[in-house]
């Protein structure tokens, strides 16, 4: 699980947010290095498709670039980034490209997942098993309706609390808890069906 996004001050050893506000190239490069991988993993898990995830990541960083002057250097930028990334994914869910990609592909047909594996320290057999497991888990995640998937991804992979998810999803906390519980129940069924 990633570290909690924090609610207060920006980490003192993080990127130079004042520089990002000024769109200073060195600060933008450090900002990109600090957050790109996390944002890419988030949008990939939410969209389940590499091409869409690349498009979404590009949209996220475009919005960051456009809104850089609005950054508050005294605050952690992660909640802002998470908000942008989830909003971008919601736009993608409504789009024709997303619908097309999810009617033409089954969850068993997820090219690219295998190449995402971090194989350090595993033998070929371990790699294969881990790849298969990742594929099945991602398949079960993709089988959830997007609003349920969003809650699971934000909670389990981004480590957000219910109140933080509620702020991002525009819901109240009770509704988020309900969605999370329903999502886990559905995930459980899909994982069982997949033999996990």
């Amino acid at each position, binding site marked *: 699980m990633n570290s909690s996004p924090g609610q207060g001050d920006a980490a003192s050893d993080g990127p130079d947010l004042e520089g990002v506000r000024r769109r200073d190239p060195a600060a933008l490069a450090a900002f*990109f290095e600090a957050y790109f*991988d996390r944002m890419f993993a988030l949008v990939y898990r939410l969209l389940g498709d590499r091409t869409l995830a690349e498009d979404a990541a590009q949209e996220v960083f475009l919005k960051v670039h456009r809104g850089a*002057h609005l950054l508050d250097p005294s605050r952690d930028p992660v909640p802002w980034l998470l908000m942008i990334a989830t909003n971008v994914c919601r736009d993608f869910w409504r789009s024709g490209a997303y619908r097309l990609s999810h009617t033409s592909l089954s969850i068993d047909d997820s090219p690219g997942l295998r190449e995402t594996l971090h194989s350090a320290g595993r033998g070929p057999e371990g790699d294969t098993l881990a790849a298969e497991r990742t594929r099945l888990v991602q398949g079960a995640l993709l089988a959830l309706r997007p609003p349920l998937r969003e809650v699971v991804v934000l909670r389990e992979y981004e480590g957000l*609390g219910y109140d933080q998810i509620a702020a991002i999803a525009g819901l109240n906390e009770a509704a988020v808890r309900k969605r999370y519980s329903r999502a886990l129940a559905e995930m459980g069924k899909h994982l069982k069906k997949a033999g996990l």
Partner: protein
Amino acid sequence: MNERPDEQPNEEEARIKRALLEASPPSAQSSFRERLKDSFVSGAIEVSGTAEARGRARRKASPIRGLSRRGRAPVWIAAAAAAAAILTIVVGTLNQGQKWMVTGVRGEGTVLVDGQPVSLTDRTALNQVLVPGAEVKIPDGVEIDLVTGGAMALQLTRRTELTLPPPPPRWINRRAEIHVRYGDIRVTTGPDFHGSHLEIVTPDADVDVTGTTFAVIVQTNGTCVCVLEGTAKVGRIVAGVPTDMQPVPGGRLRFVWKGNRPPSYDHMRDMERAKLAEFRDAQRPWLEGAPTHE
């Protein structure tokens, strides 16, 4: 985190959480990562960002992608496809409607755009951030008027939360869609809207219009659609699908209740009628040829 002290996952939930966390994190291909980093750092992303993304989405949907990947397509097919893609992008770019422009601001303080406060007195900053896809939250006591060319004017009022839509395209696929999560918005269409189609989606209701002046008021107990002139089709959203779309003529309202209660019809309240008329009249000069800042 805001865990309840007694909140412990049961055995089944713990198993699912373990499975999720054991899945390897997806990572981007290094070539894409480097390309995006370069364009982000240099600022080129501002120019190429959205158009490139759309272009790639279109390529993904095209069967030509599969052919070229296998290297089986003759060169002339690839060239024709490239020309078609360029033409599509050029036409797509030209087809885009005019940008949103702020024509009026009432109230004091800030408005939240993509989670960041923007001063209401800084009209330049507002115009920079109020772009399609922006998530906007309007505080109490604030109203913002926006116009896109001669097509449509939008008034965002008290506690409105919405995603700002792309303006209706100029010639092809002339559709626009606004997602309103909460609050009041007023919409009036101009001469350039002719032939376009606007859909407004709220948590409870779907509004379908082809040219009119109306208000959409999203409350905790449902959505009220008040039509000043023209006709709007209003229905309820059931399981994400608009149903029971009924015409609402000028001077009437339809309230779509949350839950199973059937929608109500009524005459429009005088106060909303006056506000809509005032909004329409104030935006008319902008919609009928006032110079824009394009």
